[in-house]
């Protein structure tokens, strides 16, 4: 009787401890996963063709969605900026406001979120299906390193393509801002570009580039890691259901991670 009382009283603590251990184990696995993915980049044979395929999927395949997101974001910034700056008589700073916002914040963030939604979800689902259908076990049994074979090409392709997509986002966004602010709202074209050139230095560009590298890493790490460990994630269920749940989780987690790291990087680098 006494034992039952103690057990009932302690159950929430057991449950809490159990959850903490599961979380620590999960974090440890994900940490080792990232290290193994990096190590896989240096193992032979190098999978150059697969890297090109992933560059095409993550990079070239995302260009259309990045183009439209960048154009509309830039146009909204142009309209809003023009409306707000007019109130302070600072319309001449429109180019500066649009370009700083895009290069340091919106470019890296929205590119990463678009890549997480488009390529990250596909990566997670592909690897998750390979896990539940024993294809990853088959690789291990053939003594083929699954990290070198599957994960490292995706990591390398994302690290190359996401900063390039971000650069494209910035350029298209700035042009979108020009279309809305100058062509539609009548701001001065010369001051749009000159204020931009005066306010953007290597420091701002460096912040944008560093952010895009870190975000690319986060998206690939979380998306492929969730897929890789689909069979070990608590509460994810089994089979196709587990892959669908974990894919949703991967997109949500990578988006949250991008936003949190954006704040941290801004605080450190600014």
């Amino acid at each position, binding site marked *: 009787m006494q034992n039952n009382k103690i057990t009932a009283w302690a159950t929430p603590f*057991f449950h809490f401890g*159990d959850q903490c251990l599961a979380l620590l184990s999960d974090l440890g696995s994900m940490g080792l996963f990232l290290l193994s993915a990096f190590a896989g980049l240096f193992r032979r*044979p190098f999978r150059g063709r697969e890297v090109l395929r992933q560059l095409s999927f993550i990079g070239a395949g995302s260009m259309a969605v990045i183009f439209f997101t960048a154009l509309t974001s830039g146009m909204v910034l142009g309209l809003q900026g023009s409306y707000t700056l007019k109130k302070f008589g600072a319309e001449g700073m429109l180019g500066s406001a649009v370009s700083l916002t895009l290069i340091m914040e919106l470019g890296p963030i929205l590119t990463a979120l678009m890549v997480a939604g488009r390529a990250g979800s596909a990566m997670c689902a592909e690897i998750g*299906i*390979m896990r539940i*259908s*024993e*294809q990853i*076990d*088959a690789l*291990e*049994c*053939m*003594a*083929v*390193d699954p990290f070198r*074979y599957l994960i490292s090409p995706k990591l390398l392709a994302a690290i190359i393509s996401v900063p390039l997509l971000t650069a494209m986002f910035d350029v298209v966004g700035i042009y979108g801002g020009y279309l809305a602010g100058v062509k539609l709202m009548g701001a001065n074209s010369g001051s749009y570009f000159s204020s931009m050139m005066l306010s953007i230095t290597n420091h701002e560009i460096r912040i944008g580039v560093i952010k895009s590298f870190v975000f690319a890493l986060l998206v690939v790490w979380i998306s492929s890691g969730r897929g890789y460990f689909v069979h070990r994630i*608590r509460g994810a269920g089994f089979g196709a259901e587990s892959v669908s749940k974990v894919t949703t989780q991967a997109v949500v987690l990578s988006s949250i991670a991008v936003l949190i790291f954006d704040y941290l990087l801004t605080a450190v680098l600014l």
Partner: protein
Amino acid sequence: MTYSAAAAEQNAIEFVRVSKTFYAEQGRQHRVLNDVSWGIPKGKTTVIAGGSGQGKSVTLKLILGLLKPDSGQILVDGQDVARMGQSQLRQLRTKFGVLFQGAALFDSLTVFENIALPLRERTKLKEAEIRQKVMATLETLELAGHEEKFPAQLSGGMKKRVGLARALQLEPEIVLFDEPTTGLDPLMTLEIYRLFERMQKQLGYTAVIVSHDIPKVFELADRIVLINKGEADVFAEASQIINSDKPHIREFAEKTMGI
């Protein structure tokens, strides 16, 4: 049958006092192997049978080092798999070929690319030599003409044959078959068993078959291991199972062998 040092010398794989328990949520535990010792003889076919959830597939994963035992040793050619690091395991796995339950073919690769994968990844053969070797295997396994198909375009039996072709590419010493006839009709099952028998005689590998397909699969067996409630009982032939005086073996025989 009890484990002995003399028998161990003839074995490709030995389980020495192996225990494995799985822990579920809320402290529930399921002991699948309880201090079991038995061996898999070299160059012969061993069938591992038992009810669902009794630890048959776990046994295969333990042999491959995909799972670690809680205690005991799993010796492959005298080396303990449980104590190996990742690079040693990778080296050890070159001795193995594995045919998975669902064949585990790579969906995005053609039949040819699936079979060529271990050769491309693990050998320094030139592309022309790989093509020659793969085409010869396709011919042997009556898969010629299907090399450009994707796994989704194959029947269940063909998938198993492609899986076997891939498993045999690196000329393994030991081939593990995990439920190789699941989902196949009786005729296809028979055809697959004949194929296993032919390939094993031709190549002389040690075969380990995990199967539910009782008693048909026993026809292939040189040794039968029954895993039940954490214990492993070893038999030389199916008739020994039928004549066993152990109650749980009798119960198993009655349920699965129709006696």
